[in-house]
């Protein structure tokens, strides 16, 4: 459905009630209430300006604005942006959080930390480390790097500035900051397609950047807009190799299927796939009451990352032991999840279908045991094989296994992070976990942090973003 059609259906009252979500097009803020959309999770209306496609596409005849800006200068600019995001007087960020509270399921405190915590990513040492991990020779971003092979053939290679569409996820506002930084460091022309649950953060950050210097090439390289994911009237037009080199997309299902339709020669997909994270707890956890408390606490920390909205948050916990032992673990785990949930002030109700499935299991007492209720305050389900629904909203499924070797078969191509306890058994398992499809193995309780610049989704993303260009220069005489 096009924005123009949307508009006709919008009553005046809807517009006044809607939260305003401006666009950003190559350095300019575009305000307007031409179209009213509904947010995915909470069904809140938000108003956007008309989507003017010509304003968000750079003709290929124009060299990308950031191409000859040194990486060091870009990083300095990002660092300054980070400081301004963290500044409590930044009105763009403050009003962004206010608006986001209307459309997002996460509580205000969590969102505030997300947006501000994201500023921590804009750190000089950190950004340099990311670039150094992604490129064997980061100089290729700044210049044509000379190279000569063993036959004497000479060339120059450049990690040339690409044209990227970033299809941003709706569940983690922090991704916006990261995507802007990464897009800037590869000197890309960036179009950010925002999600309906957060059509604000990206623009708030870009406005903060424009406030630093409205004419900086970094600002001129960025656009952020919203259209409804899958809207053919927009995607059919925009998703073409003449306009973009790569679509950087998060998520799966319809979100990716819509994008896949438009891939072809010249237009590639860099996908951050939808993932499920798990934990594995060895029998060593039962060595004493203390170790059991430690293991349960660490597991609860991994379950509760972003209140279980993130892909790194654990959902299934395979525990090596007999049922009575495992039940003791469950009891402690439940207690810690409830405490963490209460501390975050988040008690969203379950959706009907999930609640129904959990309540059914409550009645199958021989095979399942449930701690807590399907009320959004924390729930643990013990079973002898993983449940079939996706545990979400502070729900952990503890699966009883006689040996962690048995748990390995539950690792699949959707498995991202495996939190492990005890730590000294990790090397014994990592090859089998990788073979099954997993991407990270971490110490239990450490699912969140990762070594700076490490691969994400089994790749070095920045390396894949750029347009690798060769200038062949003949042979040495």
């Amino acid at each position, binding site marked *: 459905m096009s924005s123009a059609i949307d508009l006709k259906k919008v009553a005046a009252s809807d517009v006044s009630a809607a939260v305003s979500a401006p666009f950003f097009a190559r350095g300019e803020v575009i305000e307007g209430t031409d179209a009213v959309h509904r947010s*995915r999770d909470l069904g809140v209306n938000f108003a956007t300006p008309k989507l003017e496609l010509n304003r968000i596409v750079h003709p290929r005849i124009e060299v990308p604005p950031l191409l000859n800006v040194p990486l060091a200068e870009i990083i300095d600019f990002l660092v300054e942006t980070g400081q301004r995001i963290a500044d409590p007087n930044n009105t763009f960020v403050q009003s962004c959080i206010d608006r986001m509270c209307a459309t997002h399921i996460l509580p205000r405190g969590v969102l505030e930390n997300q947006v501000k915590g994201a500023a921590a990513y804009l750190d000089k040492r950190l950004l340099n480390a990311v670039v150094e991990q992604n490129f064997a020779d980061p100089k290729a971003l700044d210049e044509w790097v000379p190279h000569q092979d063993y036959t004497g053939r000479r060339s120059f290679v450049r990690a040339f500035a690409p044209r990227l569409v970033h299809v941003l996820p709706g569940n983690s506002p922090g991704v916006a900051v990261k995507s802007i930084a990464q897009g800037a460091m590869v000197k890309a022309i960036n179009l950010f397609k925002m999600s309906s649950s957060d059509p604000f953060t990206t623009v708030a950050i870009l406005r903060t950047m424009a406030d630093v210097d409205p004419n900086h090439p970094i600002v001129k390289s960025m656009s952020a807009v919203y259209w409804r*994911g899958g809207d053919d009237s927009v995607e059919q037009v925009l998703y073409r190799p003449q306009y973009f080199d790569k679509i950087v*997309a998060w998520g799966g299902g319809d979100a990716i299927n819509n994008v896949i339709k438009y891939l072809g020669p010249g237009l590639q997909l860099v996908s951050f796939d939808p993932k*499920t994270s798990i934990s594995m707890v060895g029998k060593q956890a039962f060595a004493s009451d203390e170790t059991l408390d430690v293991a349960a606490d660490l597991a609860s920390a991994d379950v509760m990352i972003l209140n279980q909205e993130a892909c790194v948050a654990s959902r299934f916990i395979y525990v090596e032991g007999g049922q009575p032992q495992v039940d003791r673990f469950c009891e402690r785990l439940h207690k810690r999840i409830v405490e963490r949930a209460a501390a975050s002030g988040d008690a969203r109700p379950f959706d009907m279908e999930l609640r129904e499935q959990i*309540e059914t299991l409550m*009645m*199958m007492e021989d095979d399942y045991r449930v701690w807590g209720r399907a009320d959004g305050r924390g729930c643990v389900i013990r079973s002898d094989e993983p449940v*079939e629904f996706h545990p979400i909203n502070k729900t952990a499924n503890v699966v009883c296994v006689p040996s962690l070797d048995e748990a390995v078969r539950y690792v*699949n191509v959707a498995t991202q992070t495996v939190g492990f306890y005890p730590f000294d058994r990790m090397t014994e398992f990592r090859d089998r976990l990788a073979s099954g499809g997993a991407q990270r193995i971490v110490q239990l309780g450490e699912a969140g942090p990762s070594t700076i610049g490490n691969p994400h989704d089994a790749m070095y993303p920045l390396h894949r973003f750029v347009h690798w260009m060769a200038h062949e220069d003949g042979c040495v005489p």
Partner: protein
Amino acid sequence: MGEAVERLTRLVEAEDRYDIPFADLRDAQIGAMSERFLDRKGKIKLVGHRAQEAGIGEVRSHEDVVKLLLPHTAYKSYPENWLVQSRWDRLSKWLDTVSTERVTVDKVSDAVDVDDWIGKLADNGFFVSCSSGTTGKSAMLVASRRDMDWCRQEAVAAYSWGSGVKPARDRRIFGMAAVAHVARNLATGEAYTAAMQDPDSERFAYPVPPITVGGLTQMVVLRKAIADGTAKPEDIAAFEKISAARQKAVDEAVGIAARAVVEARHGKIHVTGLWAGLYNVAKAVRELGYSAEDFHPENSIYVGGGLKRAKLPDDYREFVYETFNIRPERSYQNYSMQELHSGMPRCQTGGRYHVPPWVVPLILNKAGDDLLPMTDGEYEGRAAFFDLSLDGRWGGVISGDKISIDFGPCACGSKGPSIRDDIVRYADLEGDDKIGCAGTVDAYVRGVA
């Protein structure tokens, strides 16, 4: 059956059953739901659990009932793994949590496959119907023998009211859809045939293999194996081959059905099926060079369900009617769902679906957890119903449908509540705007859906 329930369900034979104002029924309906609840709360475990959670000891109002409704998804809350692993004992125990009578777990646990399990359950008086949901997982709905008898009686009575056709065993029935081979469909199919089918000819059965529950679950099983990473390439190839063969049978059936209906064109016929299939057969009939003037003017039609996501031209209804020479007054449409055992026939003049007195309409908010205030005139919300006829399981169900209801009289003159003919599923309205980094392995399984 309690006295209040009996009084309302007996109206199935009453000529004026859709003409009773809702206000006149209110007390009787609440009394009947209360009667059902008092009897079932100790029998249906899930209802007992729900009552306990909500702190409800008796039903005094519509608000009370809302807290006791089961969402349609309750009937697919069993783990699919049990199907994959043939855990009939566990599946039977699960079925027991939604069943009025205690499921005879011991007598059915040794089933060899799902069709055998369902057969054995039927031998013991538990009639299980399955629906294939849009997510692929089948709902399993348990019913009693009394329910099957009721379905036979109610289906034909509703048809007769809605179509204005008195069943007179004077026409040939043309089934134009592959019918799911489940207890309820078989019961109503038999009833229609007994009432309408001319004994001198034979009901035309659509020439495709019947869809059995085993057939429905075969795909589920493979999907699961692919997700788990245990499916071998040749397992997938074998399934693809079966699918291709099925598709071929479906494609060929259109031509066979078209030729058969053309041959039978001089007599009165009754066509039945789903829009997509009917449209395809109608197109084939036109291609053979036949249309309205070649068919009997008293032909009738019964179309079940909506479009089911089929994409058809805007004038698909007219195209079908005009092909088979069906006058508007002989077209029967009915709003119902597998979760209910009663239909809501569409009237001729108002074009609205009429709610019978033994079905209590409860219109909820979109989330399905709150009763909307009853207002004058038409208003929309999530459809939920309490079907007082239901015996083998709980009658209160929250559907996935968005409907517009009017508790005032319809243009056809009937004074009972009626529903506008624009029902959609909430699931179809939800966009595909969902994107996030957290997700399941379902996103990695291609093609088997």
